[in-house]
């Protein structure tokens, strides 16, 4: 929860950004999701939370925090939840950008706002958040190896040169988001989304973000086992 205290100050005029749809894939994050959604709602009019069959009441908490909650009747995985959120977000009127944002409170809202500014100023279709562009993010060596391996695989398969692949924070302009059709239901979607966005040949950029490793996210985070699953998912399609 203390991660949330670093959130950006609310906009002075009390208005919210309404041409951006924040997509939050949600699966069993009841302890933190309320705070994450409440902070997002201070800045963004459209916060779409895809409850991926949670069993701990996360969906109801997100709804109470004033997110638009969509419900998967069964658990499919993060990739499937993101795809559902993107499909819904693109159907909303006047949406210029879709943002993917993890539910566990590891992202900072200032980073989203900075990424949106970068996308608008430089006319970029995609802005990927990267924790490896500066030294703010403190990750353990094991996690670093896993993430760097994921980056290497992603760069090999997509031809892009990213510094961070499995970062949940992405700003995608609606024309690029229309080209995304995730079929990797589980975690390998992070590579798949980069692949599909790279095929659009639209301009993209990276923005340095800080990933907040709280005790909560550390306890839940992707284990080394999961990286094996990701590799297998990518190799056998």
């Amino acid at each position, binding site marked *: 929860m203390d991660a949330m205290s670093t959130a950006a100050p609310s906009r002075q005029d009390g208005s919210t950004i309404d041409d951006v749809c924040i997509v939050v894939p949600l699966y069993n994050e009841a302890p933190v999701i309320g705070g994450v959604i409440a902070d997002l709602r201070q800045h963004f009019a459209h916060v779409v939370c895809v409850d991926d069959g949670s069993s701990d009441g996360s969906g109801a908490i997100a709804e109470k925090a004033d997110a638009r909650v*969509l419900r998967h009747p069964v658990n*499919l995985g993060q990739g*499937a939840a993101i*795809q*559902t959120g993107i499909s819904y977000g693109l159907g909303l009127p006047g949406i210029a950008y879709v943002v993917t944002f993890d539910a566990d409170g590891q992202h900072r809202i200032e980073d989203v706002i900075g990424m949106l500014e970068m996308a608008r100023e430089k006319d970029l279709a995609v802005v990927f958040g990267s924790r490896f562009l500066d030294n703010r993010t403190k990750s353990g060596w094991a996690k670093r190896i896993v993430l760097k391996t994921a980056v290497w695989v992603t760069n090999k398969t997509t031809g892009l040169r990213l510094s961070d692949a499995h970062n949940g924070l992405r700003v995608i302009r609606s024309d690029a988001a229309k080209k995304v059709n995730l*079929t990797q239901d589980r975690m390998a979607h992070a590579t798949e989304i980069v692949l599909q966005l790279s095929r659009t040949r639209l301009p993209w950029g990276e923005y340095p973000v800080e990933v907040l490793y709280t005790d909560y996210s550390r306890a839940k985070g992707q284990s080394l086992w999961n990286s094996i699953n990701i590799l297998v998912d990518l190799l056998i399609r």
Partner: protein
Amino acid sequence: MWIKIILVLGIIVIGVLLARPASGDRHLALRRLFMVFLVAVAIVAVLLPDWLTWLAHLIGVGRGTDLLLYVLVIAFLVFVSTTFRRNVVLDRKIALLTRAVTLAEARAEDAEQNQLNVKAPTDDSASSGSA
């Protein structure tokens, strides 16, 4: 000697099966032909056990039962790989179905919400209409 070639070829075929997208009709037809073949071989093997041994000797396997074991292993691997493929296809279908249900539900909720919004400020709309 021959058995090694047969086994390696069998394993390669399984690898190809695993990498290739499962195509509907041909896939099903091959499965059925394989099934018929298997039944025929099984019947012959029961009626004429010596034939199995003869076949085993022909391809360099000591006993008919050993040959049976080898074939069983290959058949099992084929089963695993085809089942895996079918599972992937099934998962995809479930994901698409789930998404369709979720989005349909969301559309229904949004429509309901819009109707409430339209009904609530009737006074405003009436006054603005006359203005």
